[in-house]
C-alpha cells in the first residue's frame, strides 16, 4: 500500500472559476504543473529560435561580428542548452505530466509534490542560467561568479527535470487502471515511460559531470578547462544520439495519432511498442558519456586484416546510433497499415505529429552520418543541422500534442483550419533551419563557436555559404513566427474558443472518457480496461464511429 498521499490537495481544480496565483504556485495538480511546463517551454522556444537566428545571421559574415565576439560562444551555448533543456525536454515532460495520468486512468500523478518541486527547480535553474549568461557568465564567460552560478544552476535545472521524470515513470508503472497491463498502455504513455527511464539514467550522469565542473571551476581551473571546458564535459547530453531520448514522446505522439486519424485499432501494436522501446537505447550513449562514432579516420572503408576489429566498431556505432533510428522507422512504416481500408479523418494534430516524426527522423539520419568519421563531418555545422532537425521536429509534434489534448486540458479546441497551415509553416521552418547546415557541413563549415576561434575566422563564409547561412537564419525566423502564431491562437482558442466536448476526436484512450476539462481527481469512477483501445470497445460497432 502506498505510504505517500498521492491525491492532489489543491483547493480548486483545473475547472475552478478563478485561480489565484497562490493556487498555481502551491499546486500539486498534475494538469496545472504540466500546463505550466508546456507554456514556459514554448515561450523558451521562442527565445531560443531568436538566438538560433542571430547565430545564423552571424555566420553570414562572421568577420563583421555584429553580436560582439565575446558573446558569441555564450549565445551558442544557450542555443544548444536551451533548445534541449529549456524547450524540448520540458515540453515533452509537461505533456506527459498533464496527459499521462489521464491516459492510464489514474486519479493523480504519482508523487505530485516531487513533480511540483521538480518543476520549480527546473524553472529557477533556467532563470538563473539566463541571468548568468546575461551577466557574462556561462561557457567562455568572463565574470567568474556568474560562470559559477551558471554551472550550479545547470545542476539544479537538471535535478528538477530528473524529479519530474521519476514522478512520471512511477505513474505509468504504478497507477494504471485495473486491466491495463503494460501491453495495453497507450502509445504516448509508453513512449513517455521509455523516455523518462532514459532521462533517469542520462540526466544524473550529466549532473555528476557538472558537480566536478563546479568544484573544478571554484578551486582548480586547469583540470576541466575552466570556463572554456563547460560544453566539452556536458556536450554528450546535447548531441545525437542522446537527444533521441528527449524527442521520444514526440514519436509516441505521432504513433498515438495514427489509429485516431485512421479511426481504427493500431495493427501490430506490440511491434510499435517495441519500436518505441528501441529508440530508448539511445539513453545508453548518454550514460557512457560519448557519441560512439565509427573511429575510422583515414582508413576509409578498407577492411584489410582488421576485419574483426572493424566489425566491433560497426556493432558499437550501430547499437548506439542506428538501432534507435530503426525503432522510429518501424513506427513510421507501420503507420500506413492502420489506414488500410479505413476512412481516415485527417486533422491538424496528426499533420503536426507525422511531420514532426519525419523531421526527427531526418535529424536521426544526420546523427548516423555525423558518427562516420571518414565522412569528415565532425566539427562542422552538419551536427548542428541534425540537432535542429531533432529538436524542432520534436517541438512540432509537441505543438500538435497541445492542439490534440488542449480540448481535454482547457475544455476548448483550436480551429483545425487555422492550426493546419501552422504545421506546414513549422515544417518549412525546420527544413530551412536544418538542411542548409547539412549542405554547409559537407563543405566543411565549422560548427563549434566554442572551439578554436581561428577556424571560425579563417573560414571563408562567402559564396554558397552565405546562401546556406541566410536560409538557416530565415528558417529560425519562420520558427519564431510559427511559435508566436501558435501561442496566440492557443491563447485565443483556449480562453474564448468553441467548447470541445468530452471526446472531440472520436479517440480511443481513457482520457477521453472523462469531462473536458477533467475534475481535480480526473475520473468520477474507476474504470476497468479490457483492451488497448478501451473507448472503441464501448462504441456500437466496436470501431470508432
Amino acid at each position, binding site marked *: *500500500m*502506498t*505510504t*505517500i498521499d*498521492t491525491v492532489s490537495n489543491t483547493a480548486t481544480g483545473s475547472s475552478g472559476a478563478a485561480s489565484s496565483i497562490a493556487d498555481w504556485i502551491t499546486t500539486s495538480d498534475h494538469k496545472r504543473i504540466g500546463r505550466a511546463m508546456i507554456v514556459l517551454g514554448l515561450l523558451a522556444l521562442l527565445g531560443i529560435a531568436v538566438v538560433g537566428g542571430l547565430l545564423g545571421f552571424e555566420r553570414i559574415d562572421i568577420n563583421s561580428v555584429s553580436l560582439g565576439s565575446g558573446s558569441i560562444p555564450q549565445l551558442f551555448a544557450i542555443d544548444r542548452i536551451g533548445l534541449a533543456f529549456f524547450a524540448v525536454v520540458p515540453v515533452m515532460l509537461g505533456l506527459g505530466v498533464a496527459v499521462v495520468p489521464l491516459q492510464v486512468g489514474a486519479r493523480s500523478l*504519482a*508523487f505530485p509534490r*516531487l513533480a511540483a518541486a521538480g518543476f520549480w527547480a527546473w524553472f529557477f535553474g533556467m532563470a538563473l542560467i539566463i541571468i548568468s549568461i546575461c551577466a557574462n557568465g556561462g561557457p567562455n564567460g568572463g565574470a567568474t561568479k556568474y560562470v559559477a552560478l551558471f554551472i550550479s544552476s545547470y545542476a539544479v535545472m537538471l535535478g528538477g527535470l*530528473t524529479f519530474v521524470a*521519476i*514522478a512520471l*515513470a*512511477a505513474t505509468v*508503472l*504504478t*497507477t*494504471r*487502471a*485495473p*486491466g491495463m497491463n503494460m501491453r495495453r498502455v497507450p502509445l504516448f504513455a509508453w513512449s513517455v515511460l521509455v523516455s523518462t527511464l532514459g532521462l*533517469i*539514467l*542520462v*540526466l*544524473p*550522469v*550529466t*549532473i*555528476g*559531470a557538472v*558537480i*566536478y565542473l563546479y*568544484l*573544478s571551476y571554484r*578551486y*582548480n581551473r*586547469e*583540470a*576541466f578547462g575552466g570556463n572554456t571546458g563547460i560544453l566539452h564535459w556536458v556536450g554528450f547530453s546535447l548531441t545525437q544520439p542522446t537527444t533521441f531520448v528527449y524527442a521520444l514522446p514526440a514519436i509516441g505522439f505521432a504513433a498515438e495519432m495514427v489509429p485516431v486519424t485512421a479511426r481504427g485499432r493500431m495493427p501490430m501494436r506490440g511491434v510499435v511498442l517495441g519500436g518505441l522501446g528501441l529508440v530508448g537505447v539511445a539513453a545508453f550513449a548518454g*550514460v*557512457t*558519456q560519448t557519441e560512439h562514432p565509427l573511429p575510422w579516420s583515414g582508413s576509409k572503408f578498407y577492411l584489410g586484416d582488421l576485419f574483426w576489429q572493424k566489425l566491433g566498431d560497426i556493432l558499437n556505432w550501430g547499437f548506439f546510433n542506428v538501432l534507435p533510428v530503426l525503432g522510429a522507422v518501424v513506427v513510421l512504416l507501420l503507420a500506413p497499415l492502420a489506414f488500410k481500408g479505413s476512412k481516415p479523418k485527417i486533422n491538424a494534430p496528426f499533420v503536426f505529429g507525422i511531420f514532426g516524426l519525419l523531421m526527427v527522423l531526418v535529424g536521426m539520419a544526420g546523427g548516423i552520418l555525423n558518427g562516420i568519421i571518414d565522412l569528415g563531418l565532425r566539427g562542422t555545422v552538419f551536427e548542428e543541422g541534425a540537432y535542429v532537425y531533432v529538436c524542432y521536429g520534436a517541438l512540432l509534434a509537441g505543438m500538435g500534442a497541445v492542439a490534440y489534448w488542449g480540448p481535454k486540458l482547457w475544455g476548448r479546441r483550436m480551429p483545425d483550419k487555422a492550426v493546419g497551415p501552422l504545421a506546414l509553416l513549422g515544417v518549412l521552418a525546420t527544413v530551412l533551419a536544418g538542411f542548409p547546415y547539412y549542405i554547409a557541413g559537407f563543405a566543411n563549415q565549422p560548427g563549434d563557436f566554442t572551439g578554436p576561434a581561428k577556424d571560425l575566422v579563417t573560414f571563408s563564409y562567402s559564396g554558397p555559404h552565405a546562401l546556406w547561412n541566410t536560409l538557416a537564419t530565415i528558417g529560425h525566423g519562420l520558427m519564431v513566427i510559427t511559435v508566436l502564431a501558435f501561442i496566440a491562437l492557443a491563447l485565443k482558442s483556449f480562453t474564448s474558443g468553441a467548447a470541445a466536448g*468530452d*471526446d472531440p476526436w472520436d479517440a480511443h484512450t*481513457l482520457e*477521453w*472518457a*472523462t*469531462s473536458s476539462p477533467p475534475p481535480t481527481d480526473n475520473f468520477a*469512477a*474507476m*474504470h*476497468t480496461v479490457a483492451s488497448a483501445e*478501451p*473507448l472503441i470497445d*464501448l462504441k456500437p460497432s466496436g470501431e470508432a464511429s
Partner: protein
Amino acid sequence: MLALPPAAPPAPKRQLFVGTALACSAGTALIGGMLALWLRFRSAAINGTDHRWLPKKYSIPEVPSNIMLVSFIGIAVFAQWAVYAARRDDKRHVGMALGLVGLFAVAVINAQAAVYSQMGLPIRDKTGSAYGVMFYAITGTFVAFLILGIVFTMVTAFRYLGGRTTEREIVTAHAIYWYFTTAAFAMLWFVVYVTK
C-alpha cells in the same frame, strides 16, 4: 461522457517502493558517471609524466575507509531486519533496527570526516592535478546521499513507530535505499580507496 464499467479499487502497486527504486537508479547513474570520469582522469594521470594519480605527499587512511565498508554491511543487515520485523508486526524490533541503521550511518559520516582529517588533502592543488577536486566532489556527493538516507530513516521511524504500522512499504523502500548506498559505496571504496 462515456460510461465505462466501474471497477473494484485497484490493487496496491507499491508506489513508494517503485519510486524509491527509480530514485536509486538515478543515484546509481550519478555515482557511476562520476566514477567513470574519475577512472578516465586516473588513467590519463597514470599514463602521464608523473605516473601516479594520488599526489605524492598524501596517502589514503585505510582504517576509517575500511570501517566505512564494514559499517555498510551492518546497515544493510539492519535495514533488512526492520523489514523482517515489520512483516511480523514487531514494532519494538523495527524501532531497534531503524535506530541502528541511523546510528551506523552517522558513524559512516564520522569515518568520512576522519578520512578528510587524516589525509589533509587540499582541494586547491598548485600542481594542477584534478585529484583533490575530484576526491572531494565524489565523496562529498556520497555524504549527501548518506544525509538523505538518515532523513529517510527518521521519516520511516516516525511514521512506523508513530502508529502507521500497516504501512510496511515504507520500511521496504527504506531498505532498498540503503542497499543502493551500500552498493554505491562498495564501488566507490574499490575505485577511490583501494585502486587509488
